[in-house]
């Protein structure tokens, strides 16, 4: 151990994140080493492994531990990867997280159920409506509250639009990570179409707090059908352009095909979900397999890949956008008339006009927004298919107006665990492609 290594070790030990850092091989336990190499997926506690069984001939003087992130340009926010490199070949990887930890789950316990939406919407900032949706579904399940049909269809419309905007942004960042810089701007351009509709409908481009327990915050704006259909018409030709720019591009194919391969068993064992899982060929989409809202009434295909490599993950997302457009078309056709939020006075505040006329309405409104509504004791887990996979919300209520415990199962968090396996044996350039193909949103990972 050189003096520099000792200094580093001493510094690392002083910080709470020190234990998360990758240590030289000599200072790493064998079980940990195997995990970092992607040689094992999980080790039950208490199981010891003889490192000799898996020992790779590595001369520690010839390898280099490199720190990618949290300020690296292509780690999508503040993901930090520590990698041991032999030349440019990745020998082992360790994702280090926690740089965007804001304590949102804990904050959720201090906010009423009505305020909760403003909190969860900031977790996965590229799919805020899915976060609001899963939280609202959980609260409604505890309340045993029936949501009007129109509200549910609006929720489906918005969540599919959100899937479009999220995937298209992924296309952008994926292109950029592979060096196709124009793709980035095109992706942002298409996302703008969706965001301007969101702005029109919800008042904000992100962090909408639009889907709330009991329904949605406001009815769709007049002329929404034309806006939505315009998006649906604009997207397919643009997706065909992406095909031209990337799908058929030999360099892009070479950079993504066979890179970061994940087997279906590995994906399942690591609880990967969403496009990562589907790219391996496992047909698992909560919208079809555990239908929520009215997804069982619309017609769409679950897109799966074959090889579980970066290209499959790209293709799955690209085609999922086409499926989302299919769903949106059906939603527009079937959108019923009626209430956009529940008429249950316990949950829904009185309409704005009533407040001017009636003292009771004013008091009711005031109470609802200061104290909130009480939710019966109990616990519930709801899950929706967010653009990144299974987004779950575990909610415990003690009968008060605030959650006793709020836990969000962020798909990015689980998906990040696949990194050591997918990066094993790849090059640094592959690492960038793989990180990008996982589509981690750090706000959701750290919460």
């Amino acid at each position: 151990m050189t003096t520099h290594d000792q200094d580093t070790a001493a510094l690392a030990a002083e910080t709470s994140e020190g234990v998360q850092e990758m240590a030289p091989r000599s200072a790493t336990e064998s079980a940990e080493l195997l995990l970092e190499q992607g040689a094992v997926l999980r080790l039950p506690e208490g199981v010891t492994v003889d490192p000799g069984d898996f020992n790779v001939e590595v001369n520690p003087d010839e390898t280099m531990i490199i720190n990618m992130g949290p300020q690296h340009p292509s780690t999508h926010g503040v993901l930090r990867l520590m990698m041991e490199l032999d030349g440019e070949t990745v020998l082992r990887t360790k994702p280090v997280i926690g740089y965007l930890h804001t304590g949102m789950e804990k904050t959720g316990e201090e906010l009423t159920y009505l305020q909760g939406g403003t909190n969860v919407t900031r977790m996965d900032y590229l799919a805020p409506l899915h976060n609001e949706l899963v939280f609202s579904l959980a609260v409604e399940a505890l309340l045993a509250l029936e949501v009007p049909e129109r509200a549910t269809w609006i929720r489906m419309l918005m969540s599919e639009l959100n899937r479009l905007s999220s995937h298209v942004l992924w296309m952008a960042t994926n292109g950029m990570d592979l060096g196709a810089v124009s793709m980035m701007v095109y992706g942002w351009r298409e996302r703008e179409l969706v965001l301007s509709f969101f702005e029109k409908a919800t008042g904000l481009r992100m962090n909408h707090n639009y889907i709330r327990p009991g329904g949605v915050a406001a009815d769709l704006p007049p002329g929404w059908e034309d806006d939505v259909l315009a998006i649906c018409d604009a997207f397919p030709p643009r997706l065909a352009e992406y095909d031209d720019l990337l799908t058929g591009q030999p360099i892009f194919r070479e950079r993504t095909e066979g890179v970061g391969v994940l087997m279906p068993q590995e994906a399942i064992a690591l609880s990967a979900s969403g496009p990562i899982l589907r790219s391996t060929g496992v047909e698992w989409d909560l919208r079809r397999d555990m239908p929520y809202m009215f997804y069982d009434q619309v017609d769409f295909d679950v897109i799966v890949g074959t090889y579980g490599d970066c290209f499959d993950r790209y293709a799955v997302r690209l085609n999922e956008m086409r499926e989302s457009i299919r769903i949106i078309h059906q939603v527009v056709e079937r959108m019923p008339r009626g209430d956009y939020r529940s008429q249950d006075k316990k949950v829904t505040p009185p309409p704005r006009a009533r407040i001017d006329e009636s003292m009771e309405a004013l008091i009711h409104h005031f109470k609802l927004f200061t104290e909130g509504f009480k939710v019966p004791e109990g616990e519930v887990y709801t899950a929706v298919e967010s653009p990144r996979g299974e987004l779950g919300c575990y909610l415990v209520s003690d009968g008060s107006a605030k959650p006793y415990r709020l836990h969000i199962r962020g798909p990015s968090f689980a998906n990040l665990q696949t990194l050591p396996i997918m990066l094993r044996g790849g090059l640094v350039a592959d690492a960038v492609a793989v990180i990008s193909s996982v589509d981690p949103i750090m706000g959701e990972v750290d919460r």
Partner: protein
Amino acid sequence: MALAGAVLALGDPLFSKGVDGGVLLIVVGKAVATLALLLASVVLMIWFERKIISDMQNRVGPNRAGPWGILQTLADAFKLFTKEDLLPERADRRIFRLAPYLSVVPAFLAFSIVPVGGFVTIAHHRTQLQLADPPVGILFLLAVSSIAVYGIMLAGWSSGSKYPLLGSVRASAQMVSYEAALGLSVAAVVLITGSLSTRDIVIDQHGHLAGFLPNWNVLRLGFIPFVIFLIAGTAELNRPPFDLVEAEQELVGGYFTEYSSMRFGLFYLAEFMNTITMSAVNVTLFFGGPDGPWFHSVRWLGGIVWFLAKTVVFLFSYVWLRATLPRFRYDQLMDLGWKRLIPLSLGWLLVLAAMIVSRPWGFSVVAGGLLFVALLARAVMVGRSATDELAPGPVGEAG
């Protein structure tokens, strides 16, 4: 050929009557003018690149400094000058300071052998519009571009940091291996011209081929050396899609990650100077330099206009490549260089040499025929693989 040979032997007529004060003054003037021209074109090129790429990406691009943002580069350069010059603690100080100059000086030197126009007469001295015309012109070019590798390699190595180190390892491997392909495609030009001087190469391309086509090397050599030169040149420049050396998404900034202020500016300057030089050399070697098919006898200005026009076409193509293509991976880059470009250029060089030896006057027709067959074969191959790719269903089947 015999007549051409007589012209070739002359060199720059400036020195034919001995060297006096006037001649010296002209040489110094030309050197200053070349540097000024190169710096001005770098300023314009950076602006041009940013504007074109903005157009391709639905953006506005620089539009604040000067009309159409044309002064943006000057503003950036001024900003760079005023920045703090950081020296990393673990850097090898002397080499760290030296490296930018190793990069920028060869970039300037390389341009000196490029003929930008025909002949002019300044104060009764007839001279060519070219800073230097050494008899070993092309070898000189290859030599200084090899020195530029040291600039990049040493910059990364002396930074004392991991990402620049990876960048410099990539740089040395990439630039050395692509120099082989580059040199072999240049050898084809030298083979047909019989001279290493750039002026001779340009003069040799005057006239017409088969009556109406320009007698340019790109046609005479059957495209392949030109294509190889274009690809290898792009790799030599570290421009996309071969910009692994500075791949921002992978290596943060590559070899110049630790550089700041004007030292970084020098690398930036060198990169764009090299881009311009490479385009100019491409024009010189394969597109007749200042030679224009309908224009070459008008005036000396005509040559410069043609030269600039052709160069801009190549500069545009570099920008276009950058806007379109993803980046190669390190091993794929090496595969392309060693397994495809070098064998191809070597093979083509042998074919050319055989034809020159056997049929000194008619080989371009044969080369054209061979090219046609090769292109046809390639077109069939591409067509097949394209239909395979377009067929529905390898990915994304419905579940």
